[in-house]
């Protein structure tokens, strides 16, 4: 254990010396890629399942039980498939995040008021424009909830992957510091990661609350 002042000092030292820049960039880039993948794919899969009630009914139990399975146990499988490196980490992060996005997209589309769907028919919009111009904004509050969860889950997947087996990254640096008895690096990087996660999470929660407020739901 070292006092908080020293942890902050260690973090400052790491940031100023720039010795961890590669690891920080590695984690940030991979996490962004995984988040983008889960949000984009999750939205389209969610919209597709929403449009096909038959398929949705079949997949529903799978989706609701998904997070009951420790998804992380598939990381070794991903390592075997993609090798140790960026792609297996990104795949892990996306696997963690995507289902939250799918589920929230479907919930969001379910809650779109019927009058909006009728307006779309009156305006003779094509199904795609109907989805993007009317349903997407109307479902926004739930989509933001999905984004928030997808971000949190993707970060967990990627950092955990870096911890277990990876070539670089913030998680790797923390685990390495631990194995090296380098407590200052370990706590410093840990603090950095916690600050990043809390900042992103706080910003998304704020955005979510504002949207919920504006759309007058819950």
């Amino acid at each position, binding site marked *: 254990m070292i006092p908080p002042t020293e942890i902050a000092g260690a973090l400052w030292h790491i940031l100023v010396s720039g010795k961890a820049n590669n690891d920080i960039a590695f984690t940030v880039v991979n996490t962004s890629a995984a988040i983008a993948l889960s949000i984009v794919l999750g939205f389209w899969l969610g919209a597709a399942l929403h449009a096909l009630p038959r398929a949705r009914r*079949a997949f529903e139990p799978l989706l609701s039980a998904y997070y*009951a399975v420790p998804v992380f*146990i598939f990381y070794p*499988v991903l390592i075997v498939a993609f090798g140790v490196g960026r792609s297996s980490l990104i795949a892990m992060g996306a696997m963690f995040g995507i289902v939250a996005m799918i589920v929230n997209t479907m919930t969001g589309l379910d809650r779109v008021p019927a009058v909006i769907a009728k307006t779309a028919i009156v305006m003779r919009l094509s199904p795609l424009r109907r989805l993007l111009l009317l349903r997407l904004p109307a479902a926004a509050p739930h989509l933001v909830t999905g984004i928030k969860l997808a971000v949190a889950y993707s970060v967990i997947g990627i950092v*955990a992957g870096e*911890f277990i087996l990876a070539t670089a990254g913030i998680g790797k640096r923390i685990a390495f510091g*631990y194995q090296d008895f380098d407590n200052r690096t370990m706590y410093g990087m840990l603090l950095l990661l916690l600050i990043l*996660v809390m900042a992103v*999470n706080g910003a998304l929660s704020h955005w979510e609350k504002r949207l919920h407020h504006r759309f007058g739901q819950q």
Partner: protein
Amino acid sequence: MKPQKYDALVLAAGFLVSWEILYLLVGADVVSAPAATLSRAVTLLRGRNFWNDAASTGIAFGYACIIGIAGGLLLGLALGLHRFAGDVADPILGTVYSIPKITLYPIILLIFGLSLTAKIAFGVIHGIFPVAIFTMNAVRNVAPVHRRTARTLRLSPVATVVMVLAPAAIPEILSGIRIGIAVTLLGILIAELFASSSGIGFALIRATEIHNVVDIFALTLLLFLFAVAINTLLHIAERRVRHDA
């Protein structure tokens, strides 16, 4: 046959077929065949090594669940009953729940050493927050008239909790417990993958390091089935309680 069961069968069959196709496409170096994986899983189930690992994981999982659920219930109950404390704690719990707790494992290892205790502690910090959050919200959402009735009847605080609050809040609390148990299992397995000397997670990372594809797939499959079984049981329990309520 009910349509849901039919769907589930089609889904399982589709999953097996795509697995087999994937195997034929990329080969045994990357994906192990469904049949080989199943037979390896059966061999594992017959061997003693697997059960030693399973016992090690199971003991940690059991203790972590008990401590996490009990702690989460107490914490959630206390925060749910005191509005101000709950308002203060709500965002804090939410944030703590969303941070990647794996980063805290080294600290836990420094405190407890590489031991069963460390694994349990790590499982507990995963499970305690969802249980606390759900319990807190459940207690807060109990209809005010129930609480007022309890006060009118001059129930003691313990009697209020046991006879009024608990029955009213239990369905929601069970959802929290289900999620808590799921993430506790995740925590225990991550702890074993990162650093431990026994357990299924340890066996899994050992197989990964020596690139034993069949073992990786067989262990993953067994863990997957175990997690699904637990979740199904809890779902059934939850539904039964909801029917009673």
